[in-house]
């Protein structure tokens, strides 16, 4: 029997000629990622196991994005520890300060992760890189420590679920809405332990930013990875960024799938996930009157230049409602500069937005936009768990950037057509 793209990439990183779902394998990793929350534990595990030198100084990447610029003494200490380790190991990819951005936007943009790679990251949204046609999955700090030491990671080969998306999308509908719709249908554990492969003729309408939003939220359905077959759009993105070779894989026609789900996207409207679980999804027309205190546009799901352009389109010549704090977080310095060049910052500032430096910030309730008890935020992020952006008594609603921008103006959750 043939292999899926996920099985092929895993297989090519082992000694096996063929692999099947359920097998336990040890595979070589191309990139192992850690951040300011997860890497400190990995460093201490690495040292605890007698580790002195990392397996490859070009393959271990640290991005200090979560609590940076450092929000307090404890987080500054964590970063200091990582900085010293990175210098001592002469790591090629260590990001902080003005070069730093949200890891899952930064790594594809900088050409550090490429098509055909096997990538692990001690961060659950590492699955974002599946947009490039890579196998990428989140692991814990101990897995990262082991990979830093050996260059390998253990995996159970996942079954693959195939999602066939058909038709062009309606206006204001983006990759974010497609994945929210899927999570709404299959639930937050609908793809538990499984690979999610996205195919169908809708794919050709999806930008790399859309594909990254979709792959990013595979973990919100419990998936091990989300993956797209690379095409010309992928090539145009990867070509100009890659500094090493890369490979395009695709599933064999006779590959085996645990399920196939057909989705007609032509009827889909923008989606909103209600608290406190990403599967609690409604179409924008069904939302009702929900007042908001904050609108947050950013994160590894929707902080890319395409997302900021959509937000600017809606915010142009408009202002955020008086009681709404509108926070816009360009995900990387490159995106920040590009947005500035295109004049988006003028539009945002005129709309009374706060423009944040690239950081995870309030997405995980870290800093710079925390919610008080009873406050409501519409966010372009990926999780709306209890307490995710602040007080356990606050609420987070997930949407695409167009809806978040329109809601900021309306003062309640609203679609762009309602303005």
């Amino acid at each position, binding site marked *: 029997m043939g292999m899926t793209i996920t099985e092929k990439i895993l297989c090519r990183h082992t000694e096996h000629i063929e692999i099947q779902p359920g097998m*336990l394998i040890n595979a070589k990793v191309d990139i192992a990622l850690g951040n300011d*929350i*997860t890497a*400190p*534990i990995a460093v*201490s*595990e690495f040292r*605890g*196991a*007698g580790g002195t030198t990392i397996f490859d100084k070009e393959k271990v990447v640290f991005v200090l994005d*979560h*609590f940076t610029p450092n*929000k*307090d003494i*404890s*987080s500054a200490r*964590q970063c200091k520890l990582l900085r010293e380790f990175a210098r001592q190991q002469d790591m090629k990819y260590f990001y902080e300060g003005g070069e730093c951005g949200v890891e899952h936007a930064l790594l594809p943009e900088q050409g550090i992760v490429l098509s055909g790679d096997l990538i692990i*990251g*001690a*961060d*659950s949204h*590492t699955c974002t890189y599946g947009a490039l046609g890579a196998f990428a999955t*989140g*692991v*814990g*700090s*101990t*897995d990262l*420590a*082991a990979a830093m*030491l*050996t260059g390998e990671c*253990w995996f159970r080969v996942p079954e693959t679920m195939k999602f066939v998306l058909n038709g062009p999308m309606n206006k204001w509908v983006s990759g974010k809405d497609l994945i929210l719709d899927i999570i709404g249908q299959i639930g*937050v*554990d609908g793809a*538990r*332990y499984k690979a999610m492969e996205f195919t169908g003729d809708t794919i050709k309408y999806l930008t790399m930013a859309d594909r990254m939003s979709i792959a990013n939220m595979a*973990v919100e359905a*419990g998936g*091990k990875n989300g993956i797209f077959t690379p095409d010309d759009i992928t090539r145009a993105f990867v070509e100009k960024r890659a500094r090493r070779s890369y490979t395009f894989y695709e599933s064999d026609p006779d590959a085996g799938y645990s399920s196939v789900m057909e989705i007609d996207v032509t009827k889909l409207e923008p989606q909103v996930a209600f608290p406190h*679980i990403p599967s609690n999804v409604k179409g924008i027309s069904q939302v009702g009157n929900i007042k908001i205190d904050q609108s947050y546009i950013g994160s590894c799901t929707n902080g890319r230049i395409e997302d900021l352009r959509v937000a600017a389109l809606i915010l142009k010549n408009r202002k955020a409602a008086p009681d709404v704090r509108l926070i816009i977080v360009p995900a990387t310095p490159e995106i920040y500069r590009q947005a500035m060049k295109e004049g988006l910052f003028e539009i945002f500032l005129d709309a009374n937005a706060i423009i944040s430096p690239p950081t995870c910030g309030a997405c*995980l*309730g*870290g800093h710079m936009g925390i919610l008080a008890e009873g406050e409501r935020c519409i966010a372009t992020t990926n*999780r709306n*768990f*209890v*307490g*995710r952006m602040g007080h*356990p008594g606050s609420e987070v609603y997930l949407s695409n950037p167009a809806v978040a921008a329109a809601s900021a103006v309306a003062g309640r959750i609203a679609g762009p057509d309602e303005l």
Partner: protein
Amino acid sequence: MISKGNTWKFGNNIDTDAIIPARYLNTSDPKVLAAHCMEDADPDFMKKMTRGDIIVAGENFGCGSSREHAPIALKAAGISCIIAKSFARIFYRNAFNMGLPIFESNDLWDLISEGQEVEVDTDTGTIIISGGAGEPLTVAPIPPFMQELIRDGGLMKHIAAKKKSV
């Protein structure tokens, strides 16, 4: 190994933000993390529980973030074992990688009430409900590779042991 303790019941989809909220992740000190264990699921949890207690949960326990701070907090709080209908993938890995015993049982959640004492034999995968009627429950055996991890005391020790034997 036998874990015996009183049970605390939680529902489906207990996420890592509920187990250890991100506002406490500016440290990886197990003691600090343990002090806030399960805080957003039950603010009084740490006041009520005692060391050795067992968590019994529904589907998809530990979903969300990859933070190992979650199993670290649970372990440091003194939770001796977690039995859920199912676990989220990364939490499952993390628990084995650091030697926190976890089991999947579809039935236990419905058979007990909170506070009831259970005894778990982590080697054989049997669960006995104290004072409960009927046969002990047998849960799906832990895959051999994971048993190796537990035997060696976690992934890093497993790697070290393998290196030595080469």
